[in-house]
């Protein structure tokens, strides 16, 4: 059947494969004029791949695209743009040094009779467009002198002004203030009322329910759900994104973490982070970890989990807040100071921020602890070998020798090398950001039981994982974050999947609520 719907842009059972990965498989999506369609999913769900297929960056391996009821294949992003599909990316991609008006008319500048640029007409038109959206700004100012929010709105206005029939917004609010979000939403509403089909990608549930009409949920490259958003309860939406079956969330564990450890409540906390605040990223976050306790950070993508860990580890500059280890204050904003105090972090991106692939296992492990293995600035080979040997054995690192390049090891062993690097500095607090991402099942179980062992030995552990069961089963308590603030904390028997799901789906309090800001 050739279903002639009123969809402006539709994808039918599209698939996209990359070497070793199926990024998209059999996904359908329909964007209708006058409708705001939400696209949601966690990391690796396939959202960006789908957007790239829709905008001509990738050609789909399977399936078809239909645009205005005609089969469409865009070989280049430019083709899709010319046809009326505009995309606004998370990072504004305009020309920062040129004026707002020039940016609005980039590529289609009005000309006068002599064929020269007609700046007066351009500025006049630009002012008219921005006024219509209620964006009060001097159109002759260079774009970069404006705030991120205004830049973002100029980008959206530009997308809309190009007679677009489809506008795709990829996390447009991630760097906006609440007031700017309101303006942006009024622009989106205007687009919708003008009959434009809007695809809206965001992790902020409140925004989705506020502005969107329909929703499509992706997970692991597959379509999980599509339909009107009003029919879908929040809890159900979150459960879909995370791949949890609501009826089954209270089943027994599937990970290698053992059950509860009883943290000694009497002792002083090993780690106490208070009021961590960084503009746009963290707002008054508190985290407390006892020695021997594993505290999970819960939250959806973009909730501020990694930022919290980085802030504690001194890798994210803070506007306010303090961190203490065993009651002693740690100078903020310095990784070295945090490490001296005993805080170490396993970074999320192992390749970019962790390993030195060209150096040996020995050198990678010894990196952070070099000063304490040296005398007068000379590296003591013997001390280095002793430490490296100990940790290779203890963490069961599989390498042909300590001299093998780390780049040649498997992902799981690379991760263990990084853990060894942290552990040989004799830390008190261990921050783990996605410790089992991208490593095979066997190595994953090993890393999990290792973390368990370390906690038993008295280490205070903060655990971040986008794998739901890993957080729930690994943690003694969970701090749930949303949009950079702590929503709630789960302790003891509350640490279960049902409670975490409920916490994630819970209605956010209005950020403008005076009661909320009173305790700042």
């Amino acid at each position, binding site marked *: 059947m050739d279903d002639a719907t009123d969809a402006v842009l539709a994808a039918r059972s599209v698939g996209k494969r990359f070497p070793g990965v199926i990024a998209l498989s059999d996904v359908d999506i329909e964007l209708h004029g006058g409708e705001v369609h939400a696209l949601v999913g966690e990391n690796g769900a396939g959202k960006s791949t789908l957007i790239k297929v829709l905008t001509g960056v990738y050609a789909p391996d399977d399936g078809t695209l239909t645009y205005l009821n005609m089969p469409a294949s865009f070989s280049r992003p430019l083709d899709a743009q010319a046809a009326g599909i505009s995309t606004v990316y998370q990072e504004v991609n305009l020309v920062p040094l040129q004026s707002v008006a020039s940016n609005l008319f980039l590529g289609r500048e009005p000309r006068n009779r002599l064929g020269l640029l007609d700046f007066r007409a351009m500025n006049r038109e630009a002012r008219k467009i921005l006024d219509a959206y209620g964006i009060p700004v001097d159109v002759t100012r260079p774009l970069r002198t404006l705030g991120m929010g205004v830049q973002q709105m100029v980008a959206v206005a530009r997308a809309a002004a190009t007679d677009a029939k489809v506008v795709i917004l990829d996390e447009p609010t991630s760097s906006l203030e609440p007031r700017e979000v309101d303006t942006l939403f009024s622009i989106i509403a205007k687009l919708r009322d003008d009959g434009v089909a809007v695809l809206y990608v965001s992790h902020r549930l409140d925004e989705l329910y506020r502005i969107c009409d329909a929703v499509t949920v992706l997970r692991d490259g597959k379509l999980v759900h599509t339909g009107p958003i009003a029919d879908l309860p929040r809890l159900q939406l979150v459960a879909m994104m995370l791949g949890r079956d609501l009826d089954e969330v209270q089943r027994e564990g599937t990970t290698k973490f053992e059950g509860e450890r009883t943290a000694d409540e009497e002792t002083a906390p090993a780690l106490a982070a208070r009021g961590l605040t960084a503009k746009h990223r963290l707002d008054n976050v508190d985290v407390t970890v006892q020695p021997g306790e594993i505290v999970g950070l819960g939250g959806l993508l973009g909730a501020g989990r990694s930022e919290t860990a980085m802030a504690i580890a001194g890798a994210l500059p803070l506007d306010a807040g303090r961190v203490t280890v065993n009651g002693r204050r740690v100078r903020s904003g310095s990784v070295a100071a945090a490490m001296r105090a005993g805080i170490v972090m396993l970074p999320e991106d192992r390749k970019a921020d962790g390993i030195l692939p060209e150096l040996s296992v020995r050198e990678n492990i010894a990196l952070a602890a070099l000063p304490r293995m040296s005398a007068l600035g*000379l*590296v003591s080979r013997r001390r280095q070998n002793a430490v490296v040997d100990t940790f290779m054995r203890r963490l069961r690192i599989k390498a042909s020798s300590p001299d093998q390049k780390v780049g040649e090891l498997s992902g799981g062993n690379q991760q263990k090398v990084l853990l060894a690097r942290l552990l040989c500095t004799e830390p008190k607090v261990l921050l783990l950001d996605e410790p089992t991402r991208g490593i095979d099942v066997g190595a994953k179980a090993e890393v999990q039981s290792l973390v368990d062992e370390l906690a038993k030995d008295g280490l205070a552990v903060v655990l971040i994982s986008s794998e739901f069961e890993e957080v729930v089963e690994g943690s003694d308590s969970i701090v749930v974050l949303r949009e950079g603030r702590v929503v709630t904390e789960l302790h003891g028997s509350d640490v279960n999947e049902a409670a975490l799901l409920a916490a994630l789906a819970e209605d956010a309090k209005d950020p403008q609520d005076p009661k909320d800001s009173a305790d700042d």
Partner: protein
Amino acid sequence: MTDVAVRRDTARRWLRDNGVYAAIVLLIGYNLIFTDNFATVANLNTQLVQVAPVLIVALGMALVIGTEGVDLSVGSVMAIAAAILPLYLGYGLAPAIGLALVAGALCGLLNGTLVAVVGIQPIVATLALLVGGRGLALVFADGQLKNINNAELLDLGTGKASVPLIPLVAAVLAVVAWALVRHTTVGRTQVATTGRTVRPVLLIVCGIGLLLLAVIALSTGTRINVPFIVLIAAVLAVLVWFLVRQTTFGRQLVSVGGNRAASALAGLPVRRVLMTTYVISGMLAAIAGIIATARLTASDPSRIGELFELSAITAVVVGGTPLSGGRVRVLGTVAGALLMQLIAATLIKHNLPPSTAQIVQAAIIVAAVYLQRSRSGGGQ
């Protein structure tokens, strides 16, 4: 990969790691047979004295390149050191040299600050001093070439140290043997059960070393004359090699070059390491400037060190240090400088114009970079 591909890859890697040494051996072999008056002490000294300043600058350059940077200002820093020298020779040689070194260190500090603190790209940051430094040198020197009359300094340029031959040979052999055993797979045996490597050869080398010591003690000694300049360059090369291999700073330098983000997250003093690296490069350039002045018997700030940055980068690259950082090959850098010198000398001795040497050197540079190109980037 097919067998052929594996073999080709292995061959490529061998060439990348050892090609510069092989090329030197080949060229020396060719010269021994076909070039008259090649294997003479006089010729050897001439060649080594000529290459010494480039080599010294290249040692610093190798460190900077190891941090994924580059120091274009070295030639101008040489000129600054050369310009400062005659101004203070009146107070004696030591204060003059000391001040020239301080000037070099300050130049390096400026570069390091721009790179590590301000966050300017190394090529741009050091370009500023490449341009401005020579101007500054001319200001110091009042725009004039100054003849050097200080006897001590002149002696540094032309003098020779009488070195007992046998200990010299023994020391060189010992260093080579130790380097081979320590840093290559020669003589390594792996103990299967623990995965640790042991080196029985190490014991053998120690034995040989002791034997040689006995010989030295007994020998009354044939002595050879080694130019001071060559001695200085050799000592600096060993020092830099030791710095990279055996010190905390050296390992941190390589780590910062290999992955700056990871190093910062591992708590390394990234800024301090970068600053120190540029300071060392600046000081080595100053030493090269002093030596060049002594050999020239004049301080010529408008010409000294011209295009040295390019010669130094060439030596480093040909020596197998990747421009992408994370690795410093000190011995390779020495060999790279020697190879370039040897190529020029060989062609000149066979009455070919210097332009031919430049073309051959260009081919060698392209070959070295080709060999270093990452496998994934090859598109094969």
